[in-house]
């Protein structure tokens, strides 16, 4: 007899060791997320995937599924809270979509569309953040970094290079590069690294292909991320 959890009234089965997110993705149930990518070790930092389990808020991407769990996912309250978190991400960085090559392929933007975000709502922080164009093939724009650490995980766990890390604390947290100068061009980073293609936003961009797919024909221009993700297509690839 297989084990099941219930998400918004729908029973889905899972295997031992799966998280709520794993089970949901396998059953093509969308739970909003940004720092989660099934290829990498769950992180649990963005908190978009917060769901209610027996009245308690937990991160779906890190919480192991257990038999009989009742999970609330698509509720108005949760979506309002998730929208607030997306708004927080927008104001803490410098996310100027019209200036960004990733627009239309950006998961931050796509999740915001999905949650019907009409305004960032909070006052903008406009933090000074560093841009690094030193690498011949890859551009690093920390203005758009949401600190999800997907690049950190990809470089460490897949590429075996540890090119990225986080330094600072709290609102001063920042992405750092593993080289004496701190510049990407002086690190061992290569455009073929997995870490070059995992950024959910436009913080890590591959040079010379920004507009090969025009605005209007991009992943999330016509199809919401909830649909893209549940159709099994991996979002966020730099196309």
């Amino acid at each position, binding site marked *: 007899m297989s084990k099941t959890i219930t998400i918004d009234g729908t029973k889905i089965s899972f295997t031992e060791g799966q998280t709520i997110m794993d089970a949901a993705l396998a059953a093509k149930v969308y739970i909003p997320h940004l720092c989660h990518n099934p290829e990498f070790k769950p992180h649990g930092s963005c908190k978009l995937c917060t769901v209610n389990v027996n009245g308690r808020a937990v991160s779906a991407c890190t919480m192991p599924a257990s038999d009989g769990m009742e999970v609330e996912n698509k509720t108005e309250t949760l979506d309002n809270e998730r929208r607030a978190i997306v708004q927080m991400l*927008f104001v803490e960085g*410098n*996310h*100027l*979509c*019209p*200036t*960004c090559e990733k*627009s*239309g392929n950006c998961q931050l*933007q796509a999740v*915001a*569309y999905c949650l*019907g975000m*009409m*305004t*960032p*709502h909070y*006052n*903008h922080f*406009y*933090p*000074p*953040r560093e841009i690094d164009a030193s690498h011949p093939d890859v551009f690093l724009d920390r203005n758009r970094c949401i600190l999800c650490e997907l690049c950190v995980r990809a470089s460490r766990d897949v590429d075996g290079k540890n090119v990225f890390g986080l330094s600072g604390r709290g609102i001063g947290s920042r992405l750092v590069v593993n080289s004496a100068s701190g510049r990407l061009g002086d690190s061992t980073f290569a455009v073929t690294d997995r870490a070059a293609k995992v950024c959910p936003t436009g913080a890590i961009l591959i040079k010379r292909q920004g507009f090969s797919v025009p*605005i209007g024909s991009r992943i999330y*221009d*016509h199809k*919401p991320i909830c649909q893209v993700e549940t159709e099994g297509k991996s979002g966020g690839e730099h196309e």
Partner: protein
Amino acid sequence: MSEVKKVRIATCSLAGCFGCHMSLLDIDERLFDLLEVVEFNRTPLTDIKHCSPCDVGIIEGGVCNAENVHVLKEFRKNCKVLVAMGACAITGGLPAMRNNIDLWDCFQEVYRYEGGLEGGQIPNDPELPLPFDKVHPIYEVVKVDYFLPGCPPSGDAIWKFLTDLLAGREPKLDYEQLHYD
């Protein structure tokens, strides 16, 4: 028989590019339908210079200087409902790209170092609006009731938004109409 009272709308562009106004014109022949039910007060289209009391004010562009604040406050005072239209009004937009450049450096670059400006002076004429340290979205300066994102929002998005608003519905864009770029 008295005519139905038309909804009075005012619009303006602050620190923006008028792209949103161009997009407003992109509703094309539906403008005629619109004019059946609305009349335009202060707008770049009518060339009326100051707002009278209006039902709806639509602002394009963010706030980058002192004059923007005067205009914005005039709108807020006169308009029952204030709408932020486009990326600049909602996030600061492209002009906000200067927010992490020191204002002094901006002035130097524009008035001192730019080619052909040898001995150039920083202008100090009182007629010129004085810039802020940073560009702000309008909701950080006055209370804003509705937001219509896009750079610019498409004609269809503007049409959907306005028809909802005029019909007394909470404006709601379809998925493909909601864009930040």
